[in-house]
């Protein structure tokens, strides 16, 4: 293997409220660490070039493309992924609205959509439809035509989905 111990670095971060310490290679992306080392495969990689938004996760509350975000840069930070939204099997209003509104079909963009929308709602609890469209501009969906996604986010906002179950605050 090309991997060598000398090149490895220590990474300590919090993922969905749990502290994780691992040795990684400097070149590893956050998406690779989440998917391959922590088995959090809900985060999907599509374009691998920070264009499509499928890999969106939250780092200290900010939506980032984990496919191009070096895991080393997440050292000491709080990372939230789609697996951290529902707690004890209880869906967030946003997740429920996605189901109710059929805001996904194949589901491959859904994790990223949910995380981008979560960041949006945490910053702006009462967005207009235009706000939602702008907030999700970096997220592609090829199945739905987007309208149901916008409706779902607005519905979640109306239901008071400001902080989600797995929000930063809950982990502290």
């Amino acid at each position: 293997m090309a991997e060598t111990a000398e090149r490895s670095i220590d990474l300590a971060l919090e993922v969905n409220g749990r502290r994780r310490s691992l040795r990684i290679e400097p070149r590893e992306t956050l998406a690779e660490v989440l998917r391959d080392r922590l088995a959090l495969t809900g985060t999907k990689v599509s374009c691998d070039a920070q264009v499509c938004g499928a890999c969106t996760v939250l780092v200290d509350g900010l939506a980032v493309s984990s496919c191009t975000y070096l895991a080393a840069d997440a050292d000491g930070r709080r990372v939230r992924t789609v697996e951290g939204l529902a707690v004890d099997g209880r869906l967030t209003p946003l997740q429920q609205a996605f189901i109710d509104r059929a805001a996904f079909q194949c589901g491959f963009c859904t994790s990223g959509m949910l995380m981008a929308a979560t960041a949006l709602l945490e910053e702006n609890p009462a967005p207009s439809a235009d706000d939602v469209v702008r907030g999700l501009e970096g997220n592609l969906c090829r199945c739905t035509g987007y309208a149901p996604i916008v409706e779902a986010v607005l519905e979640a906002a109306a239901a008071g989905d400001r902080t989600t179950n797995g929000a930063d605050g809950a982990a502290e």
Partner: protein
Amino acid sequence: MKRVTTRDAAPAPIGEPVPRRDGIAKVTGGATYATDIALPGMAHAKVLRSPYAHARVVSIDTAAARAHPGVIAVVTAEDLPDVELIYGHAVADHPLIATGKVRFAGEPVVGVVAEDAVTAQEALALVTVEYEPLPWVTDVAAALAPDAPIIHERPGEQRAHRGFEEDIERTAANVCSASRQQWGDVDAAFAEAALVVEGEFRYPLCYAYAMEPYTAVASWSEGALTVWTSAQHPYMVRDDLAHCFHLPLSAVRVIVPYVGGGYGSKSYTKIEPLTAALALRAGRPVRLALSVEEAILTTRGDGARIRLATAFDHEGHLLGRRATVHLDTGAYAENSPLVARKAANRLGGPYRIPALDVRCSAIYTNTAPASSFRGFGAPQVTFAAESQMDEAAERLGLDPLELRRRNVLQPGERPWPRVRGIDADLGADLEIAAEELEWDTPAVAGRGKAISISASDAGSEPVTTAVVRVHSDGSVTVTAGSTEIGQGSSTVLAQIAAGEMAVPLDRVHLVQSDTAAVSYDRSTGASRTTTLMGLAIQRAARDARAQLVRWAEEALAPDGPAVVEERDGVSIDGKRYDWGELVRAWFGGASGEVVGRGYVRRAGATEEMPPFWEVGCVGVEASVDEETGEIRLERLVTVGDVGCAINPQLVESQDVGAAVMGLAIQRAARDARAQLVRWAEEALAPDGPAVVEERDGVSIG
């Protein structure tokens, strides 16, 4: 048979917008896709691709790559003497890895397997390939020129024709297939026409961009092959794998978990033979996950050049249609022979056309292979044909809606001999679109309205099986070879089974798309899953019910009291038994199950082709910014003439999603034109002579 319901049965969920069954998995990150499959000992592959559109492979030096630490196997065509390298469901012309020659930039030439993907990627740089570039053609006109380079030298490469043998003929060197549809006296029709509308139309090459790129994991064990893949048609992939590796069908297992979008781009075989070959040489399970860039080089939609002429009488009745369609099929046939066939068929309606002569050819070019994409054949030709309907209306001084009303096929009417009559109400569809669009209210200045309609022969071949198992507790397992690609099959098919067995929906579970565990289904595409697999499940459920009634007679009423079939069980002398009780009674214990079988083939209700007609009816109101030329869609109306909507919410989301993808194609094509004009300005006219955009290019000075 008389059926009496004596107590409240579970409500039949047919026609209900029940929530998607994959909903919770997909919003919690718990849904498994091919990209999430990880096996013990799994190695990772990367592919070295040709930088040339057309070249002879002179030599490949893999020594340095093989010596790279962490590399397990480096594989070229020469390393696979025991593998049949050429596959293809329509025309066997597609090598799983380049055999002496490359036919498009991006064609796989060498596969490297390593402990991890990064190491495999590193090793690709250590491979040296010597190419001898050949003259190339990247568009249809160049491919058909008399002195065009020949892309496939050996006609013998075209040999596996399934279902449309009559279309495979090589009329010129780079012709992959040629389809013709004709009836009536076309010459006479055009001779007597009051109006002939003629034109040439171009349809762009498009990449479907399913969010999930192609991914496969292959594993060999005891001479049998298992492949997890993002394919829409697991059974057809199985067939190609069995062919390549000289295996019986039973020794190949293809498993498809959730698929991250298909739209046709994951129909048929893609990277599975290569992945299996790499696993064979590596002696380990191998994962090959393409990047989006590589996926673009794997399959795209057929571009088209359409020459179309339509003849009308003075009242706007269609008299005849002539067309020559050239599809840009790319380097390998893939599904393009069928795209050509369908394009020919889809010019045969949705109107009454007394005389027609349509030729559609799939043409090889040195570009990435083209295949299915969203109603293949239909968008290419419908765009052209419906544009001519509008042009004819204008020239005849008729309302475009009225022109369509006069010509549209009536329910039951056959578009051409020996096909199923139209099983939809196209006239009513037009009126619904018109009403929604307020057709009779003229658009304000700067805006326009349009309505368009098509009818596609859908459903593909009716070859489908299903199994419905009713367990000893009365719950139901359905095995169905249809793939959940986002269309909602896991929900709709469960609804059908629950409705037929009259059990609550949450008592029905589905197992899909595993060729070893689930019985055969031809494919998931052409809108055939709800119709054909739905029919197979309905038949399997009825077969299970019939057996259960017989079992009740045998086990509970051998001496004759009548067994009365109810919605959700039977009653004997007024005593009720549910399905689970009947299973237990017949087996004489606490366990057992009944196995119901459903078959769909070219017989009975599905003897006539196509199995059904799929209607597309769309209305738009658009505005044009007169300064910038920007077209803005103000309103979009779609009409889905689907018969009984088993899950109306899913129907609506399919319809809207497809319509928006269609808009994206239009936008992308306009964007491509705008870029080319800008490039012309920058490269050819930097100092100012005006660049004028023409229909099919630019003129300068």
